[in-house]
């Protein structure tokens, strides 16, 4: 049996924290610490060395983007740490900051709403813990609306495919969702990578780069 994924959870609202602990425990995650503030989160991660961190963005002490900054800090300290950040609002700049941390893998940026779809949420957590990337569909949708982006060269179908890649789906899963063959998906992915001028190397990494291109064509962070 595979070892349980060790999780540190940070959420300042007690009821929601307990609900999430219950959810995680139910699906072979081991919650090694459940905390309610950023300093406690940093402490717990440094002592417990978990596989996965699930954190809220707005948390004490400053109730701003404390959780996100903690996530970026922790990723700098432990590049292999998987982090899923939960946000009350869609904010593509946050997703961008998170994806730019480390190699852009093992990160997830989700609307808090997604925890309600328990099964999907758990699948996403597992995917991120296993080295994938997960961006909230709402963020992806917003990015696709963005004008003047290098993605303008992509066809509608290719955009759909890239959106699903950004959400973290495999070629097979995308084929299933779009009702086309996996070979067709492979062809679309090839076109996307060519149009985004991503040189052929490690295929998985190029997929991440394609997603990053999405996010980096977005707004630069204010100075």
């Amino acid at each position, binding site marked *: 049996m595979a070892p349980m994924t060790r999780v540190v959870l940070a959420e300042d609202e007690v009821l929601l924290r307990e609900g999430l602990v*219950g959810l995680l425990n139910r699906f072979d995650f081991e919650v090694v610490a459940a905390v309610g503030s950023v300093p406690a989160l940093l402490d717990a991660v440094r002592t417990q060395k978990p596989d996965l961190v699930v954190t809220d963005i707005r948390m004490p002490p400053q*109730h701003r983007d404390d959780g996100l900054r903690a996530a970026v800090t922790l990723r700098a300290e432990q590049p292999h740490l998987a982090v899923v950040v939960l946000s009350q609002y869609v904010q593509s700049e946050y997703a961008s900051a998170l994806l730019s941390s480390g190699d852009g893998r093992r990160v997830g940026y989700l609307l*808090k709403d997604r*925890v309600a*779809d*328990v099964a999907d949420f758990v699948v996403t957590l597992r995917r991120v813990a296993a080295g994938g990337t997960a961006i909230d569909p709402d963020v992806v949708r917003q990015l696709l*609306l963005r*004008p*003047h982006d290098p993605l303008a060269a992509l066809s509608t179908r290719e955009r759909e495919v890239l959106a699903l890649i950004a959400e973290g789906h495999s070629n097979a899963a995308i084929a299933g969702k779009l009702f086309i063959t996996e070979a067709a998906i492979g062809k679309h992915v090839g076109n996307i990578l060519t149009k985004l001028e991503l040189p052929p190397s490690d295929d998985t990494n190029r997929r991440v780069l394609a997603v990053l291109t999405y996010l980096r064509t977005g*707004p630069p962070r204010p100075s």
Partner: protein
Amino acid sequence: MTLDRPRHLAAALRRPGYLLSSWPWRALVYAACTLPIAGALFVGLLAVVAPLWATISAVRRGQSVELPVVIFLTVAGLALLALAPIVSAVVAPLERWRLGLVDPRPLAGARIRGLAARYPSPAAWREVAYLCWLGGAVPVAYWMLSLLVLLDFTLIASPWLAVDSDRVILVQTTVDTPGQAIPYAVVGLLFIPVLWYLLGLLVAVQAVVARRLLGGPVAGVALREVTRSRTRLVNAYEAERRRIERDVHDAAQPRLTSLTLQLGLAKLDVPDDSPAAKPLAIAHGQAKALMVTLRQIVQGIRPQHLAELGLAGAVRELAAATTVPVAVHADLRQRLPELIETTAYFVVSESVSNVAQHAQATRAEVRLTQADQDLVVEVEDNGRGGASPGHGTGLTGLADRVAAVNGRLLLASPAGGPTVLRVELPWHR
């Protein structure tokens, strides 16, 4: 007509009952006490101006001017300049008090504390200008008026004068007998009301000049106070929005998420064929929909992006979420006061949504520029134009918001486009 009793001399002069009111007498008292003050100032001015005048005339006639004269004039001129603000410190309060006789309306204006503070103060030099008027122009006017009064008295007294001395010279004619003089006396009597009016007019002009030069900008002060209180109100309103947003975010939203999560967990345990499965699924769906609704409500109360990303970042997020392509150019050097940022954000938000809904535009541009005093927000689109506050496109509300922070809203939207909306928000306090 007690309701609209005139409040000052200039207003009273235009009323039919002027001569029967107390106003002519007030003007008379004012004029009487003007004489010694204006006279003293006249003499003081004359001490310098008369030699100066004489010297200038001499120079114009080609005569040479001796050095002691030049030194005297220079020293006297400088002394006059140096002394004038001190003299005005004494005379100006007296004049303000005197003004109450003919114009009792309150006179605003900052009082200058200390003699040293008078020299750099524009208000003090306006007082000096008033002294020059009082010592220079007013005596000339009084002299002319007193000549008229003297002439009138002569006309009225002419019958008696004609009895005493055989001949009386009146203006250009000569009368010998009281009988001949009577028409002139009648004219003189009839001229008295004209004199009353002339006196009133002269004093009213004095009062207007005094009010201009001795008083501060009354209306300006009042307006500033109103604006300040309006800004306080808007600030209080903003603080309240912030509190509501925080309460919803900290208390309601996580609990709703928690509830929805529990419903989601329960769904996993209820078999699909259970009678509870369907209502549970519906409840779960409704809870999820409510999460979206609540988030939208909070966004409307207070934009989350603004607090976290600043104005430029928040406007970019806004642009990114708009269906029409919107280019954002932001040139902001620093974070602005929160109220200004919020107002600017709502300006962009409202305009961009107008562009998307009404303008039929294919692209739009938002420019944020930080000038020394103002934050300038410009939203331009290539749509059909014709936007006007009357068409219910939220422009009126926008204008109100802008006005509340003392800003300006300018709109150019000819039919056929393009539409440019420019808002200037003063941020520098």
